[in-house]
């Protein structure tokens, strides 16, 4: 990787620059686009830093058909790899609905798991501190289940995926602010 990244949210943004205009290959999801997606992962609301990767990797002019195909193939792989840098998925309060912006990333993970059937993943479900401990434990599990279902529908095998919910016990950000809560309501993919 040429670029450094400060957090995973930026990886998504960088990947957008990198793949500029390449449409994703056919998959089973609706294309929600990425336009609104960044804000959900970029919970801090700060500015986004682009550093170096100028997205010039894909240029189709003056290439032969096979070269173009190869370039496209490489670009698609790079896109998928970049997407797979994102392993945390966020949720709204008291919901387990997978957000639009998580879908392409999860689909990329699902394809990877389908291509690598020996890869095992633990899906850790989490909730923010509000509400009751035990309900949040169940809510974290429902979030992990939602991600698991999405991955299976998109090609992963049930045997590759294990869920565990920690409820509100393992916040990534401490404190009682909207920003902290938003970052704590999440499912993390942990590759074994």
């Amino acid at each position, binding site marked *: 990787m040429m670029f450094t990244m400060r957090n995973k949210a930026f990886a998504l943004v960088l990947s957008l620059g990198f793949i500029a205009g390449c449409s994703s290959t056919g998959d089973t999801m609706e294309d929600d686009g990425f336009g609104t997606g960044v804000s959900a992962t970029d919970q801090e609301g700060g500015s986004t830093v682009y550093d170096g990767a100028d997205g010039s990797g894909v240029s189709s002019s003056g290439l032969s058909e096979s070269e173009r195909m190869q370039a496209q193939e490489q670009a698609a792989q790079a896109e998928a790899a970049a997407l797979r840098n994102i392993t945390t998925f966020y949720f709204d309060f*008291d919901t387990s609905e997978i957000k639009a912006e998580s879908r392409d990333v999860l689909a990329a993970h699902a394809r990877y798991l389908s291509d690598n059937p020996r890869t095992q993943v633990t899906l850790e479900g989490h909730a923010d*501190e*509000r*509400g*009751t*401990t*035990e*309900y949040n*434990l*169940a*809510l974290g*599990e*429902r979030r992990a*289940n939602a991600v698991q279902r999405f991955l299976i529908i998109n090609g992963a095998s049930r045997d590759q995926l294990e*869920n*565990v*919910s*920690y*409820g509100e*016990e*393992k916040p990534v950000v*401490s*404190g*009682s602010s909207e920003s902290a809560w938003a970052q704590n309501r999440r499912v993390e993919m942990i590759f074994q």
Partner: protein
Amino acid sequence: MTMDIENMTDYTLTDQRKKSRCRALRRQCSRLLIPVFVLMALAMPASAELLIRITEGVDSAIPLAVVPFAKTGNLPGGDDVSEIVRDDLTMSGEFKPLSPERMLSLPSRSDDVYYRDWRMLGQRFLLVGELSQQGDRIQARYELFDVNGERRLLGETAAASADDMRGLAHHISDKVYEAVTGEKGAFSTKLAYVTLETGAGKRIYKLQVSDVDGKRARVRLESDEPILSPTWSPDGKTLAYVSFETGRPAIYTHELSSGKRERVASFSGLNSSPDWSPDGKSLLVTLSKDGNAEIYKLDLASKSTKRLTDHWSIDTEGSWTADGRGFLFTSDRSGGPQVYYNATEGAEPRRLTFGSRYNARPRFSPDGKFIYYVHQREGGFHIARMNMETGNETVLTRTGLDESPSVAPNGRMLIYSTQQGGTSVLTVMSAGGGSNYVLPAATGDVREPAWSPFLR
């Protein structure tokens, strides 16, 4: 749990010899007063214990005088019995003990009691007593008087080992409380709770059991993975709880006297929210082994499970009725978490809460007349109480992230966790509202309180 108190028979003090000894003691007692207070202060900072902050008095509290107990023989320093009794009664929120500095005399026996003095001080009840050494045990003789009625309500002795002066004091508090209010006192009961220390990327969970004033805390389990939802067996001898010590949630039972533990539920998915049945034979638990969070009855002998709810939504936080026939639980089948009630195991769930979008983790009062639960209103989470007969809902707390209400076995107080200055503390309040005292941890958070049943 190892508290060893003998409750002996009633005694009377009439003969002249005892009377004169008693007068001598009275003088001795007033001399002893100051050194005793110093010792108490020195004995205070024990790091494992919870701190205590008494928060607010209740206007209707009963004025009562606890006279510093007279002492004979070689008595242990440190815990002062009458001081602890005074604190206990203050913490109940129902008594307003007189400060010893305001007392006109310091009687230790009935013959030295001049009702007029105590009436002048506006006292309704008076407790006097004397501690003495009896072999390797310490005996307390104590008497409780109705000041206006000018009669003795209690005259008893109790003994405990020298290292259990707190147990002895809590026992006397129970007796006084019962004689005055007609309800059993809960000062000899215990609290189970979980402390959480965070630092250097580590989280240390400790399951602890202490007296109801947070003193004499003992760590029963320590883990760097979460420990949640302790619940007492009806005989008070065993705890059940959720521990993530294997990396996954499982339910354990833990006998306090022996430390013997057993993993009773470790199915795939959730194993959580245990609540011990009143007959002691089973736990209500939340499992997701059949797809999503449902409530099951887990038989502790056979480990067989019986599913009690069936819905695609989250069903959790099951809690038995006092007779063990029905149960309360939380379900989000209506779109958000609400409290439901099954009158019997097979009954159709009846939704009880409608007052706001988030109502969860219900617990019955011991008499079954009320339920206590977590209630969201205007963004904050509070403890609310519902009258089961009328359906009237009262919000009891004014703090913000209130959780885990647990009712004392006499139904007069409850404990819950809340946040103060970014850390989690326990608060004890009167069952009708108004906080009595706060129990912060010396460091870090304290949460998941569970009030024990009556012990012994």
